[in-house]
């Protein structure tokens, strides 16, 4: 970064299948108010707002940041709206960081949300490309074939996906904001209906309403407190084309390139041992094994083994998704920022019951599109 940048406040909503108690502005405000309070700031302290969310069809309002401008305190401020599919929450936070790193902004409020109970999420996630037979039914319908390919390539046993899902629920039980928090067993998962074979219902993310906001500030301001900030050591947002012959959709190149970018700039040469926790975007359980490899936490073909040995559980070597992750909470537009925000909370020592001990460096990661967009950051206790 050109100049030091830090997260000085995080606020999120209590995520649920349907927040019928709040309007869209109300939902966003719950997160914004909490983030400002956490940072000890008022709206007047904020120089700009960067907001992101996934397809507007999810709520039936086009470019809703426009009608939300007043509610998020953006009146007479610069405001940008980001949309990079599933990774949007993360790329939005990174856009806010760049604003501060540029030296032109000292404090930027960044927000990501989705109130998808208000539309028909399955329809919005099943785009009909014109002049093509519509076959893809929901995001899972697109990704399930690649989970199958991962299993075929690695010979991973069938219990790995269910094991990951069970672990995520155990983690979510420690996270008061998570949507799905009830524990379940591997048998529960194996007995749940198959949605897109090989992905089962209980291996799939929920559809949630939720929002998260963060205040990103310059290093000088961050040092002033009131609390320990999370220093953004590095951040990157990459994308790759879809129809590249032979494109690896099990371990996409853009993911590897983005990870190398953030590791190099944060001085990480051995992610498995230099990072103490990671919030990675796992909407379907098998992706946890796949991303462990894509992110260099495991050798190719070995990601599932780390899960099998429980090395990514809470309390183990490198807890993955201590918040419960996307498998337990998925307001699509917000999920990417929830990963980055949860990583920040871990580094700030403010993750409450799901705080991992001894965190110095944390990775926050998200992906989107046909596994084309990858956005991630490394946050640290030290500059």
């Amino acid at each position, binding site marked *: *970064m*050109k100049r030091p940048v830090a997260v000085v406040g995080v606020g999120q909503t209590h995520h649920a299948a349907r927040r019928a108690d709040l*309007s*869209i502005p109300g939902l966003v405000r719950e997160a914004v108010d909490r983030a400002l309070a956490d940072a000890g700031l008022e709206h007047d302290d904020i120089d700009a707002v960067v907001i992101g969310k996934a*397809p*507007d*069809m*999810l*709520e*039936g*309002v*086009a*470019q*809703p*940041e*426009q*009608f939300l*401008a*007043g509610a998020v305190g*953006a*009146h*007479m*401020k*610069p*405001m*940008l*709206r*980001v*949309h*990079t*599919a599933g990774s949007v929450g993360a*790329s939005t936070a990174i*856009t806010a960081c*760049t*604003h501060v*790193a*540029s*030296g*032109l902004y000292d404090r930027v409020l960044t927000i990501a949300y989705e109130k998808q109970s208000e539309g028909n999420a399955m329809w*919005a*996630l099943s*785009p*009909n*490309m014109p002049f093509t037979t519509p076959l893809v039914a929901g995001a899972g319908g697109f990704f399930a074939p690649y989970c199958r390919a991962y299993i075929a390539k690695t010979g991973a046993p069938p219990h790995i996906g269910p094991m990951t899902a069970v672990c995520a629920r155990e983690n979510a039980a420690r996270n008061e904001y998570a949507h799905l928090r009830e524990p379940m067993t591997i048998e529960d998962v194996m007995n749940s209906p198959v949605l897109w074979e090989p992905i089962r219902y209980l291996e799939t993310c929920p559809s949630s309403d939720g929002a998260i906001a963060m205040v990103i500030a310059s290093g000088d301001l961050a040092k002033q407190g009131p609390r320990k900030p999370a220093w953004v050591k590095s951040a990157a*947002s*990459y*994308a*790759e*084309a*879809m*129809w*590249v012959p032979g494109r690896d959709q099990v371990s996409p*190149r853009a993911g590897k*390139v*983005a990870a190398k970018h953030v590791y190099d700039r944060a001085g990480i040469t051995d992610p498995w041992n230099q990072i103490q926790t990671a919030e990675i975007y796992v909407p379907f359980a098998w992706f946890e094994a796949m991303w462990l490899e894509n992110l260099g936490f495991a050798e190719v073909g070995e990601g599932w083994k780390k899960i099998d040995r429980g090395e990514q559980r809470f309390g183990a070597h490198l807890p993955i998704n201590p918040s419960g992750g996307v498998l337990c909470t998925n307001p699509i537009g917000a999920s990417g920022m929830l990963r980055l925000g949860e990583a920040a909370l871990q580094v700030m020592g403010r993750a409450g019951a799901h705080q991992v001990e001894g965190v110095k460096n944390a990775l926050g990661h998200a992906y989107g*599109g*046909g596994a*084309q*967009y*990858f956005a991630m950051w490394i946050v640290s206790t030290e500059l």
Partner: protein
Amino acid sequence: MTKLRNVAIVGFAQLPIVARDEHRMSSEMLYPAVREALAQVGVERDAIDYQISASTDYMDGRPFGFVSALDVMGSWPPRQDLHLEMDGTFAAYYAWIRMQADECDTAIVCGHGKTSEGEPDRVLGLQLDPYYQAALGLDATSTAALQASAYMARTGATDADLAAIAARNRSAGTKNPDAQVREAASAAGLQMSPWAVEPLRRGYVPPIGESATCLVLAAEGKAEKLCDKPVWIHGVDHRTEMQTLGARDLSRSASARFAAGKACAMAGIAGASAVDLAELHATNPAAELILCEALGLDPKAAKPAINPSGGAICGDPIMSTGLIRLGEVFRQLSGRAKDRAVAGAKKAIAHGTQGHALQHNIVWVLGSERRWS
């Protein structure tokens, strides 16, 4: 004023604005624009550090519509990338911010969208808050008309005044081969066109049109190698206001005024009238008058020349219209404006807008020389 990094526009390509491109899909329109922009600056795609695109799902008529643009922008190997659901002029702003943060030295900014495939007026109506304003059935022309009414009531501007502005833009458009509307029209003739939504006549607003655009930005050190006459960014600022139509003075654009003040201060000029030309993203004459007032420009003065391209009234490819204002300024100041060139132009303003009734405005100040040394 802090010294910033000098960044310039070094290339710009657009497809001529047409009512409906019957031969190409949205992403197909963007490919020739990107190729031409790269050809202008004489580099291969790999030489560009950053890419950012601008479009909106609702205009495309499908969620994730923008993803297909990756395949035509040269996104292999993987690129540092972003996409905004905003007009390309705001994407250009973020590319500029990335350069100020030393995150890149070159960038392509792409705008696309096949406006003709849907019903843009209704789609834009969906931007209104779903609880109170959208329920009124307002579309973009109606809210523009509300604003025009408010302006005319406050200032006493008349239908003839609006017609004169529209006629001036139309006359300029005849010299712009990329404009959609290229026939001149007299003020009297335009005043006879039926109402679109009173007090805006059909002749005062652009027809539905589409294009694809690609602007190339480069920082000092690279810019000089890519263009014989880079057009340097001197100042820029953008501000949004609350959307609620009844909560702001629609007859004025407070955010355009504020942004112009900041941009001019950064540029080290006293005000917008210090430039030689201004390209304003005004999709009707009342909006143009409101913007002139906000920026301190006299719409009747010869200088600065306003909308020598014919402006948005001669072509409004939504998501590219604001970016085209930047592109037109580039053409003017780099000697590429041919028949519509404003002689001796050295400084210019480009404006862009988003949202109903000029809710969100960006003002750029650009010049032939570097701003900071």
